């Protein structure tokens, strides 16, 4: 009985409390611009497929945002993972890159906005791949290079830090054991270092995606954005549609949790040896 309470009830107490407090405040304030009621927000979700303030349905906005984040994340990861492994493996590579990376790391991705706009202007996936004008061009025009850059920067640093740490901290005994068993340098790298560092690498990928996802609103504040949950929030704010702002916030939160749970499942399935 007690265990049931701990696992089934305990995790939901605070969220439920939040809803109650929210609703009480909303009734007392009686101002939809400051705090709309829960009913108003759930109405938005019940009509999720409606066209909201000319920006399309909720699923479409989430979809556009997801593609933006995943493309920026992919670019960040494709650079961070090999470089992180290289830096963890080779002390001189670390010496070469470390200062540069440490200087850029504390800069919040949002600070790059003006520069990103200057560098990449209005270029997008559509212009990069020289797509012919038409519906395709309009759709892929949503994915601006500057946004992908911002999200990529956000994902890059947690990924590279975790990957490097993981490779560096592979136990010396494991490497020595492999050597005395006749491992070549190649064996050590692919059969010892990479699998031993895999949990840290995965953890980096997980944190990187979370950070990339949280850069979304900032990235979608860039001009030329015509859809996406982040833009929905910014635009709804301009129209004083607080209910839509909260709807967008909930979308970001829930999608973030779902993305994270993918990593959780992979961790439990493949890396139980570590935990």
């Amino acid at each position: 009985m007690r265990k049931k309470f701990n696992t089934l009830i305990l995790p939901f107490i605070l969220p439920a409390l939040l809803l109650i407090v929210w609703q009480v405040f909303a009734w007392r304030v009686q101002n939809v611009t400051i705090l709309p009621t829960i009913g108003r927000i759930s109405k938005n979700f019940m009509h999720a497929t409606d066209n909201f303030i000319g920006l399309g349905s909720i699923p479409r906005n989430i979809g556009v945002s997801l593609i933006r984040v995943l493309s920026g994340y992919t670019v960040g990861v494709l650079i961070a993972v090999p470089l992180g492994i290289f830096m963890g493996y080779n002390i001189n590579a670390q010496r070469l890159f470390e200062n540069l990376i440490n200087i850029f790391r504390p800069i919040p991705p949002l600070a790059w906005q003006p520069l990103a706009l200057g560098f990449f202007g209005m270029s997008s996936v559509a212009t990069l791949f020289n797509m012919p004008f038409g519906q395709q061009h309009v759709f892929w025009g949503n994915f601006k290079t500057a946004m992908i850059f911002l999200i990529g920067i956000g994902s890059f640093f947690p990924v590279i830090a975790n990957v490097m740490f993981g490779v560096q901290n592979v136990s010396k005994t494991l490497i020595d054991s492999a050597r005395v068993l006749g491992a070549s340098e190649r064996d050590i790298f692919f059969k010892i270092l990479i699998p031993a560092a895999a949990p840290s690498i995965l953890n980096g990928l997980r944190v990187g995606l979370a950070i990339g996802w949280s850069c979304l609103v900032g990235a979608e504040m860039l001009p030329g954005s015509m859809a996406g949950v982040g833009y929905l929030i910014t635009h709804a704010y301009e129209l004083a549609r607080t209910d839509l702002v909260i709807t967008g916030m909930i979308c970001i939160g829930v999608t973030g949790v779902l993305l994270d749970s993918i990593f959780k499942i992979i961790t439990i399935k493949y890396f139980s040896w570590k935990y």
Partner: protein
Amino acid sequence: MEGKIRVEHLEKIFCSQNDMKITALTDINLRVQENEFVCILGPSGCGKSTFLRIVAGLEESSTGKVFYDGQEHVKPRREIGMVFQNYSLMPWLNVLDNIALGLNFAGISRAKRTAKAEKYLDMIGMSDFGKAFPNELSGGMQQRVAIARALANNPDVLLMDEPFGALDAYTRIIMQRELLRIWEQHKVTILFVTHSVDEAVYLADRIVLMSSSPGKIKRDITISIPRIRERSNPLFGELTEELLILLENA
């Protein structure tokens, strides 16, 4: 007699951070015959582990040479296996894959190496644990697997660096008996580092006693008590006593 392993005038000098030179080992000369069981006994910090790592080819000596079968050797090789004190199993591989690891590096097909690994799994009496992961095993079982893994590579020489040092007293005694059985069965040359006098007297044909700072060989004692040795045997007690006194002055 050339011996399986021959060490000549070995010296190891470490450079500390502030450029101080520390002599860890000096003028080590040692010959180990084929199928001999030699224990290296010494106080903590006498450099016995460093010595073993040099013999394994994991570290370089500053001067002096190590010969294997009469050939000078510096890099790790399959003929010389090694068992570490603990945590040397790959945590992401199950027991069978761990035992087969050396065969994997040698490029032997999966079916063949699994079959061979199963044989060694049998030898250590753990047939039911092939699919288990190292973190599911007790310390004693992990060390059994580490020994099986080293032997699956068919080494001539087995270097053991305090392999039972992290085990509780009871498991340790069981493992010592087990190791002697395996050694008699497989006929390998064993170089075994320990700081336990009891362990050395129980296991070794010969005890090489080391003293510290700098680490050097102080005595070389042949043990003639027949196996299996009983700890209640007065000869066992006398030798242990004698070694303890020597160790105290080491």
